[in-house]
């Protein structure tokens, strides 16, 4: 076991419990992308952490609970089919601006929108914001990635089913070269990661999510202005 393995093992119990944050979490995830042994250890610890939840006392919910849940599922059905993007305030706000710009009719509004968009980018010295849908090889939607070229440049990714639980590398093709942008930990069918990057986001082409065996599980292509 390498020194890095030993350091990571110290962190895995907290990672399995979902209470590890910041730099320690990033360091552990980074190591997990290339260490199958530590990944197995994380899986074993996660099984224990999740299994603990079954020990909580059971409790009968208030009368009518079942009917209220069913009514809610019926209400949400149409929205469920339409919804593609989950919640992440800052990125979603920018997306609304970009998407709105695509369909808005009227030059005055377009000019206002463009001006507003430039202002938003200017807050962090930005020149470009892009949003890309990520899909499996079969064309099934599995997440979104947002890129921002500015100072600093950053990447934000959201991953969901059908991507299985695990640790994945986010790889971008910049000027024809594969560049690691970050690492995302998918747990219980959901994962997200955001961070700054020194890569040139105005030149990134394809973005991929790659598993520990180097297999691509999701990909998307960035379209630039």
């Amino acid at each position, binding site marked *: 076991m390498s020194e890095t393995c030993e350091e990571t093992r110290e962190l895995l119990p907290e990672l399995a419990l979902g209470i590890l944050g910041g730099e320690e979490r990033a360091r552990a995830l980074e190591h997990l992308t290339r260490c199958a042994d530590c990944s197995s250890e994380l899986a074993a*610890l996660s099984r224990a952490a999740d299994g603990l939840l079954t020990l909580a006392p059971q409790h*009968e*919910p*208030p009368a009518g609970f079942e009917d209220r*849940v069913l009514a809610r599922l019926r209400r949400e059905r149409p929205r469920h089919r339409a919804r593609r993007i989950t919640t992440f305030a800052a990125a979603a706000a920018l997306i609304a601006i970009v998407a709105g710009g695509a369909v808005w009719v009227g030059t005055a509004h377009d000019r206002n929108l463009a001006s507003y968009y430039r202002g938003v980018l200017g807050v962090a010295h930005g020149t470009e914001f892009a949003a890309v849908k990520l899909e499996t090889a079969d064309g099934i939607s599995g997440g979104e990635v947002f890129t921002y070229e500015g100072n600093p440049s950053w990447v934000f990714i959201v991953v969901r089913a059908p991507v299985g639980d695990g640790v994945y590398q986010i790889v971008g093709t910049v000027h024809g070269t594969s560049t690691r942008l970050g690492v995302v930990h998918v747990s*219980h069918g959901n994962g997200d990661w955001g961070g700054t990057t020194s890569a040139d986001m105005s030149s990134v082409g394809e973005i991929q999510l790659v598993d520990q065996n180097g297999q691509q599980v999701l990909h998307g292509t960035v379209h630039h202005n």
Partner: protein
Amino acid sequence: MWSVSDEALLAGLASGESDAAVAFIRRFQRRVFGLAMTILGDTAAAEDVAQETFARAWRHAGAFDARRGPVATWLLAIARNMAIDTLRLRRADPVDPDTMVSMQGPAPDAGPEERALSGDDAHRLHEAMATLPAEQRRALVLAAFYGKTAREIGESENIPLGTAKTRIRSAMLKLRGSLQVEDDERDM
């Protein structure tokens, strides 16, 4: 209906079969609501979390991977994460973790469905929890059920950060070890 597997019910829920949805809710509601009540200690808030847990299970059923664990733990992990989010928003103090120390395993008179739901892991983990030193058990409960970080546990327990981390790690390794013993016995 009870003979239908959890996985089949989840698939039925996802595909919009109302019978499956009813059966799924009935099978898991006491666990989901119980966990939410344990964490939040408030009936209305716990019902909100429990309702949203079932809605999310319905939306994200495709994310369930049977190789990574049973439906019950997947569902309870969703409930736990939402209850912790609610707890943080309300800035509420967690219920005294000592009340969790008497956490039940499956009742001795539990029926076959109940035992199947809990699985062997629950028995092993229950036994392992009982053997932990009290301070390790407290730290683990604060982390696993209330989402408290090592730093927060250190502050609330008035111990150094390193001690909090050690307590959590020691407890988790013992629990993991108890499951490993089970697997080894099964393989023999």
